[in-house]
């Protein structure tokens, strides 16, 4: 039986009176890592790459404002998306072009390598931090600001930022590694996921809507590392997906059409992540929740 949820959630499901609704309280807010990063910059420990203008200010879970740059972004691509679901990255670029927003799709980027690290542990905190900071330095050298496509990279980089802020010995070690390749130690002022950018431009996207998708019921895979790692530094909006996640979602549309029908070509970029539709028939169908959670 399908779960009766629409995206974005409106009406009774998002009413203020519902049980267990999250309410922002600055008293519950954890430490402000952005402010701490700026303090370290003032001490000469590293450079903080500022968010370029124009940007949109949004609210995170406990009410801190987060700057989301609209353009001049350096696209930190995702292994899983580019390798197996390339419509994902292609759509993000397509949206930028449709909105007339400038971006940089670099070759001077490696994976964050965290997917492998979480799976096999064949790495360590110094290597993981060095990989992150090499990518950030590469972005800084171009003058473009990192926009991260991968949920794991996004969560992992926020953890790495926290580790670097709290452990001087780790900063020193990573700084030495980068120095050998002639790169500075740079941390972005904000760590931004592509879905946060989508959130920031959602009304502009809506103005260009071609198809009405309101009657499509969808299953979703809110990526674990997106909203569980350092969750306080992600956009929180109770009107979007019941406040569970801000991103447009990975998922497959469910409708009553025959199984395995390919979606009509050119039917919106966002839909290209789900090129195949699932039936709601009684015959066994592959599990729609087969997306990996790492």
């Amino acid at each position, binding site marked *: 039986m399908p779960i009766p949820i629409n995206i974005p959630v409106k009406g009774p499901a998002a009413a203020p009176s519902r049980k267990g609704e999250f309410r922002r309280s600055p008293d519950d807010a954890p430490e402000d890592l952005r402010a701490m990063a700026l303090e370290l910059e003032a001490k000469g420990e590293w450079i903080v790459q500022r968010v370029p203008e124009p940007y949109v200010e949004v609210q995170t879970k406990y009410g801190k404002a987060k700057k989301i740059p609209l353009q001049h972004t350096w696209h930190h*691509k995702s*292994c899983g998306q580019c*390798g197996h679901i390339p419509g994902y990255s292609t759509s993000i670029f397509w949206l930028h072009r449709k909105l007339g927003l400038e971006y940089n799709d670099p070759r001077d980027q490696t994976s964050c390598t965290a997917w*492998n690290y979480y799976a*096999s542990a064949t*790495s360590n*905190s110094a290597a993981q931090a060095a990989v992150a900071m090499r990518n950030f330095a590469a972005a800084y050298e171009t003058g473009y600001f990192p926009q991260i496509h991968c949920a794991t990279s996004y969560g992992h980089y926020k953890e790495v930022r926290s580790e670097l802020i709290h452990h001087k010995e780790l900063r020193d070690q990573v700084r030495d*590694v980068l120095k050998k390749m002639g790169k500075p130690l740079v941390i972005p002022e904000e760590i931004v996921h592509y879905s946060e950018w989508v959130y920031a431009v959602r009304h502009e996207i809506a103005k260009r809507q071609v198809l009405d998708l309101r009657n499509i019921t969808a299953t979703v895979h809110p990526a674990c590392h997106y909203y569980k790692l350092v969750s306080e530094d992600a956009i929180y909006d109770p009107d979007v997906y019941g406040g569970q996640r801000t991103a447009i979602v990975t998922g497959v549309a469910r409708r009553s059409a025959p199984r395995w029908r390919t979606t009509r070509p050119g039917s919106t970029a966002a839909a290209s992540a789900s090129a195949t539709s699932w039936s709601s028939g009684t015959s066994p169908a592959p599990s729609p929740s087969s997306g990996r959670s790492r």
Partner: protein
Amino acid sequence: MATGTGTGASSAGLARATPGGSVERGAEPPFEEKLRLFNEVTQDLRFPDYLYGCYECGICVAVCPSARFYDFSPRRIAQAVAREDVELVYEQMNRDVWECSQCFSCLRCPRQNNPGGIVTIMREVAVKNGLHSAKEALEGYSRIIYKIMSTGTQVSPDMIRPDAFPDWGPTAKETADNLEVWRRAMPPETMHTTSSSWEVDDKTLTELYLIWHLTGVLDMIKTLDESLHMILVDVMEEKLEEAGYPLGG
């Protein structure tokens, strides 16, 4: 104070220490060796941020997907290290840690513990010390490690094989058969590749290789899989030398 009286004492026969420091399958290692591994876990710079105490409320177990399918409990992980139960931690390092999916659902702990993070450190110590259980858990995973360490990306289009992924449906074969054409048809030129997720510059790759060398990751691979280590060194050394990076020390 660390103890050796925990419930993990039943793990006899899991592994034994070797003169080289790695731990092979066979007899139980002495307590001192288990204590050394335990201390390696607790001395990781991240450890103090991952463990604050435990209410035994079980929230972490309730939300843990691995706990639904395996005899795995993030609560037991947090409690074993909190109680400094060296025997149990050693047993967990040889079995339980490889059942965690590293989704970090357990981060909703009301005491701000991070059992998933503790598992990350325990796995790392298991790999670094060549525990047989780590080698066993990662059997068949060498191809992925090779891919990520040598190409700088983990998932490549040429992994799309209908026999390997039948759940991808009937279009997987057509995609695999015409992979290069499909990839070249995509607008982003960085994705006109089939052997890596996107095209990575040679200079960028060399910098990544330097990171693996300088941070001891290649040494970890040597402990885990000597053949893989030889192949990776072969791939990396020439590029590093060409770029003028010193490899000694």
